[in-house]
């Protein structure tokens, strides 16, 4: 092998390794094990920078006093909090944090919820969802009336003014119910006046159903809706029609 080739090979290998190697990011490691003392340390390290040591909020982040269990559990269990890099999302108020793998294990999240709630009473408790009591058809009606305008008819999310509504496909039943009751970020909160507890079960069941909908029409075309379906129908349908017309016109 010539020296030039050897050099090129070595360079390629070096670039490949450099591209494949990520320095250990804080966001991709899950913290396990929790004792009361640890939770305070975790809070101060990951949350206190923006929300303040006592959760009263700073210029970088809102207060956590009285936000309630459902809100804390939603933000932390969906991995939206803590922010990977506070400078990115907190500075740009137009950016709502996106869903990530949760930073903490379940026991740590529970301990963190307890810790944050100890700052002050108030807010919504974590809703108890009973999917066995759900009425899927009613849930579908509620979804189309209350949720589909932002999250799109198949729960894939959609565009708002300068913002976007997230996809619902990876949310657990509890997270869906929490989001409805709490209204995280841009989303309005839906209290019992808007969605009763029984209706909440139904709409949650419907959102879970949207993960694996029964596509009776065959290929769902990525659930994009009438635009994709119309494009396929026009391109293939008119193509076949043109060919057929040519064949009929032949003499």
């Amino acid at each position, binding site marked *: 092998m010539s020296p030039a080739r050897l050099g090129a090979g070595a360079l390629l290998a070096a670039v490949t390794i450099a591209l494949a190697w990520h320095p250990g990011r804080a966001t991709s490691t899950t913290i396990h094990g929790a004792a009361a003392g640890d939770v305070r340390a975790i809070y101060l390290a990951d949350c206190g920078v923006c929300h303040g040591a006592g959760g009263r909020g700073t210029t970088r982040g809102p207060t956590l006093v009285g936000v309630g269990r459902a809100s804390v559990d939603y933000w932390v269990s969906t991995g939206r909090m803590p922010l990977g890099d506070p400078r990115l999302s907190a500075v740009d108020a137009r950016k709502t944090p996106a869903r990530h793998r949760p930073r903490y294990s379940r026991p740590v999240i529970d301990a963190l919820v307890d810790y944050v709630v100890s700052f002050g009473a108030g807010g919504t408790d974590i809703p108890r969802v009973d999917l066995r009591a759900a009425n899927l058809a009613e849930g579908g009606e509620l979804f189309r009336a209350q949720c589909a305008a932002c999250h799109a008819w198949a729960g894939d999310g959609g565009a708002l003014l300068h913002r976007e509504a997230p996809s619902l496909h990876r949310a657990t039943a509890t997270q869906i119910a929490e989001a409805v009751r709490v209204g995280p970020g841009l989303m*309005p909160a*839906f*209290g019992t*006046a808007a969605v009763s507890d029984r209706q909440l079960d139904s709409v949650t069941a419907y959102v879970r159903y949207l993960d694996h909908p029964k596509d009776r029409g065959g290929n769902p075309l990525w659930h994009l809706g009438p635009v994709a379906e119309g494009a396929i129908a026009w391109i293939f349908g008119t193509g076949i029609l043109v060919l057929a017309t040519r064949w009929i016109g032949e003499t």
Partner: protein
Amino acid sequence: MTQREERRAERAAAAGFGVTVLACGGLAYVYLQGGQAQLEGLLLAVAFAGVAYGFVTWGQKLMPQGPVSEDRHHLPSTEPERERFEADLERGGVLTRRRLLVRALGAAVVALGGVALFPIRSLGPRPGTSLAHTPWRRGMRLVTEDGRPVRAADVPRGGLVTVFPEGHAGSADGQAVLVRVEDPGRIRHRPGRDDWSPHGYIAYSKVCTHAGCPVGLYQAETHQLLCPCHQSTFDVLDGARPVFGPAAAALPQLPLRLDPDGYLRARGDFPEPVGPAYWHRA
């Protein structure tokens, strides 16, 4: 075309029709077995394609092919006919006889014009001032779509409920969005409307002033109501003033008050007509 080619074409067309029969049989079988939408669709397509193939083959191969020309017949009228026409023309009766027809036609047109007015009457009673009002009356409670009265405590901060006048759940022009603003101090009241939004509960007509779509999207963080049809955006804190999109007029505000039992009630109707701004606004 030879006898043999013709027989072959005949068989091909018949085979096409045969395919249709088979596909229809298959369709019946699949349907009776419980059905499978995609397979049924395919069989139906094959059935139609069989008929189409048969027809086209029949038309192309077995029908007489053109172009076919026909000689023109003799155009001028015969001598006696022409003489008779000239005689009629000179007598003058031929054309005046049409006067009856013209009058009858005039009568028919007039009658049709009169009949055309009937649908205008059938449009129904005159709307009068009803378009300027909704079912909202002073003291009416706000209810949800299924008729439950809205308790203020059941609307969380940053919350949103679609509300209707009590007794008119589902009313198209009476529907309104009730929002509970987290920080009531940020609401900029219009003159004379200071007490229309108690404790940050504020309600606006849900009918977009642009094209009448339901303004159902609420961005709680930015306090903006969005219309899903054309992205008209209204600032809830500033009298639902349009801040983006094609809507030109603010959403009419519903005056609210909180009754001692904790229910929300209307202080009266919307101060201006709801919906698209196509008629005069005060």
